[in-house]
């Protein structure tokens, strides 16, 4: 659409600008302020310069949390993207079942995050949970509160349960918007299903797939409530991801400076990676 240049449009944007600035800039300034100072007691602050940042970047605990976070996000993307795409391809295009499938699939997305944690907690209890009892009955020794591998398995399974539907819904929406003419042309050419997928559906889905990757990357990188309810970051600190690490520091209360430095580095990582995705995506769109 060709838009007219008019600076009066700012008046329309002003309420949004004021509200978001109040909510975003004030807290971010607080965080920056803390990150370069040292606090004694509640209200005494001393200049600390870049010390917290240097300490953080050398801290092996931070490296460990970051490493776990990257492995978790990578695993989640590797499972949820292909699975979500496959399920979307299995969805009916027309008929009464479409609404039923969509509503059922959207359900996990609307469950409060602490309830997701509780739900999987109850599900995975080794003595009375369906999953825990089931696995143990199959002869697999499974206890997610003791075994790191079992904890990881449960956390990833929970995330797959929780978020694969988002990928499905995005891909499904993309698939539905492909005009019928493409399929008819493919039929005339005698294309096999694989060829239809590879040369028609996949290219048309590029846009929604990029967005799905972007969203799943951002949200899995911020995961907190579900994991804290399910495993509390344990056993030990084997499922302690970045947000959990940060909250332990921040709510501990005495480490305002380090916690603030942590916040800034954390936010910057997400921002830089998302910005990369975003520009790549927009470049694709421009072509």
């Amino acid at each position, binding site marked *: 659409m060709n838009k007219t240049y*008019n600076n009066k449009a700012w008046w329309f944007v002003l309420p949004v600008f004021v509200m978001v600035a109040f909510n975003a800039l004030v807290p971010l300034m607080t*965080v920056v302020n803390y990150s370069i100072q040292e606090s004694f007691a509640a209200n005494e602050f001393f200049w600390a310069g870049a010390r917290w940042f240097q300490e953080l970047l050398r801290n092996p605990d931070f490296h460990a949390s970051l490493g776990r976070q990257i492995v978790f996000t990578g695993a989640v993307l590797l499972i949820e993207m292909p699975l979500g795409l496959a399920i979307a391809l299995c969805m009916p295009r027309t008929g009464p079942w479409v609404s039923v499938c969509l509503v059922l699939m959207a*359900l*996990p*997305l*609307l469950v409060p995050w602490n309830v997701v944690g509780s739900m999987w907690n109850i599900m995975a209890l080794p003595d009375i949970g369906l999953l825990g009892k089931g696995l143990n009955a199959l002869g697999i020794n499974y206890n997610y509160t003791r075994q790191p591998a079992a904890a990881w398995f449960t956390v990833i399974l929970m995330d797959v349960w929780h978020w694969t539907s988002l990928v499905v819904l995005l891909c*499904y929406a993309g698939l539905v918007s492909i005009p019928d003419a493409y399929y008819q042309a493919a039929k005339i050419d005698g294309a096999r299903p694989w060829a239809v997928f590879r040369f028609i559906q996949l290219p048309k889905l590029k846009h929604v797939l990029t967005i799905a990757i972007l969203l799943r990357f951002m949200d899995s990188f911020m995961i907190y409530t579900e994991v804290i309810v399910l495993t509390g970051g344990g056993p030990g600190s084997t499922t302690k991801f970045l947000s959990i690490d940060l909250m332990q520091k921040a709510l501990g209360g005495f480490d305002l400076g380090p916690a603030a430095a942590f916040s800034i580095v954390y936010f910057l990582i997400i921002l830089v990676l998302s910005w990369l995705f975003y520009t790549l995506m927009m470049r694709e769109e421009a072509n």
Partner: protein
Amino acid sequence: MRKRHVVLTLYIIFLMLPIYWLLNMSFKTTNEILGGFSAFPREFTLDSYRTIFTDPTWYGAYLNSITYVAINTVISIAVALPAAYAFSRYRFLGDKHLFFWLLTNRMAPPAVFVLPFVNLYYAVDLFDTPWAVALSHTLFNIPRAVWILEGFMSGVPKELDETAYVDGYSFPRFFIRIFIPTISAGIGVAAFFCFMFSWVEMLLAKNLTSVAAKPIVAAMTKTASTSGYELGLLAAAGVLTLIPGAVVVYFVRNYIAKGFALGRV
């Protein structure tokens, strides 16, 4: 064709199993739960639900959650509507930067904002009110609403605006009488996503409240930790949190596919 149905059915069963298990637990007595594994309740009881509906700390927590979600959705949509219109119709100084800056807030981890938000809302005397949670959630929901609405509005041809002006409509009248009804599907989808985020987000909701405006998550945490291990109560509370989501998703079921088609969530 049949293979597809099998895959789809298996996936939906996988989605429903934990929900079934939660339902199952919520109808059991504490004795039965601790007594051992059972796939369905042998002594069917509604005690857990009765507790929730009679104890004000429980149902009060539900009402608190619903209050801040409603306030948040209304504010987010109300301020996002004109802004999305401006982004879809005009170029202005700094528009692209502003749009990207708004989106960066969608990427902000709530954990980063917990501590400064507590300070901020203490300072403005809103701590422990639904307003604190509602306003803090607008940080994520206003950008989301602007993004979704801008997508829908860009699909409406500009000729609509021009024709209305020729017909003698003033801008506010055009916006309310013609434009808003035209993009009502978009408003529904945007409200759905605002509701969705505000209802499921728990970290800020919990930390910005203490007693008076305690959300459902705080009530549930209390059950899990202090008063022993009342799994039945916890499960019943969990089941009840599913209902608002199910109702909302039912209302927007015909627009969901369209909402996701723009890829703006």
